[in-house]
């Protein structure tokens, strides 16, 4: 479970970076980019928080 949370956290952090890259390349609108960044950020804090709280 903890490992899955870490993977999810890392994927969400990558998504935070992918959103503006997609916007820059013209494959995503500005509002969609901002929403995707926000959503990925929420997932990052939830997943990384879960992973961190269960650190031995």
């Amino acid at each position, binding site marked *: 479970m903890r490992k899955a949370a870490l993977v999810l956290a890392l994927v969400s952090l990558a998504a935070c970076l992918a959103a*503006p890259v997609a916007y820059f390349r013209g494959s995503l609108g500005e509002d969609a980019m901002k929403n995707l*960044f926000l959503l990925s950020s929420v997932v990052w804090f939830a997943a990384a928080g879960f992973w961190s709280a269960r650190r031995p």
Partner: protein
Amino acid sequence: MSRLARLTARMDQLYEYDREPVQESALEPGRHFAGLFAGEHVAATEFVIGAFFVLHGVTLRDLFFGLLVGNLLAVLSWTFVCAPIATDTRLTLYWYLRKIAGPGLTFVYNIANAVLYCILAGAMIAVSATALGPAFGIRSPGLSDFFPTSLGWVLVTVLIGAVFTLFAILGFEKLARFGGLCSPWIFVAFLAGAIASLPKLGVAPDLSNLVEVARSRVWTGVATEGQEKFTLGHVLFFAWFANLAMHIGLSDMALFRFAKHWGYGLYSAVGMYTGHMLAWICSGIMVAAIGREMDPGRMAYEALGVSGAFAVFFAGWTTANPTLYRAGLALQAVTGWPRWKITLVAGGLTTAFSCFPAVFLKLLDYVALYGLVLMPIGAIVFAEHWLFPRLGIPRYRAEAEGALVNWRAALVWAGTLAACYFMPLHLFYRWLPGYGIALAGYVVLGLATRPRT
């Protein structure tokens, strides 16, 4: 017992837990230092510093080479000045300085450090206020503003200061954990904000005109009206002295006493080249995209929406809190009050500073002054640790004689600052000759007053 002696005894009790040199079993691996540096140097102030380079008319070439070389010099300062003394003594600066300068002067150093910390935390709160202000329709202060610009600005900074202080009182441990979660995300927010700003500056999706846009629209070489023009030297020296108190000033001995080897100082490069190079470049791009207006909150909001505003807010919060904690710890000895009470006082002081926009609008000068004020102590410790044995001057005389204050050190500290004040040089360059003066002055006084055998 004099009042100063009573105060220093109280301060000793506070730092009692790290009085003994670090044991072999407590040494930390290299990745621990890499993580610490990466987290600590992507702070709210990065939103301001990189943007100021743009406003000060730095050219692309000067920025690139200045940051590359300046940060390298900072890394080398940690590696060859700070880490070797730390791994040799395995002590914090507090306890080592106590042996050298006496408990009285160490006490004065701690108080100076605490006040400087409060001002720095005030700057973090002010930066956070620029993120929260727009939600209440409050405009951020302009570049020339020194005093609070509106009642709304004061209310927002007081509100943020109160929240930060409350959380600092409630628990440093939990907040430190939250800060650990924020660090990678804030760094990604810097990168994402810069990438999202590129289309607004007219950068083509294939990056073919990136350098041309960087030269013509971001680091143009033309300073904004009222701002001094910066050149390669300004950028290089700023990158070098941005953490002067930590490397040349030796306060990171607290960190490197846990290092297995002095070469671990090289891990500081992780923090320097991510926080003090990439993040500064990113904030420069973001400020150019909003028409060179110094407003960190707006910069990030325009780039990333509400997440950007949160990034600025969290960056301010997570870096203001340890700063508040350290300031509270240093001030605790003066009063002997419980930690919650002194954190409340430090928070109040910090909040009062944060109402003045000057704390973040004059941040570059403040960072220079902060390092300059504490730098002579680093020179004194360096001289006593490395030069005194080679010159046959006895070390730790303050400790051996039971002196409350090492007057040679006090004189060198005050004299160096006086000399720096009158130097006909730009503020950014004064610390280097100042360091030479402090080193030479302390050695000469040591030689002149050494006991005859």
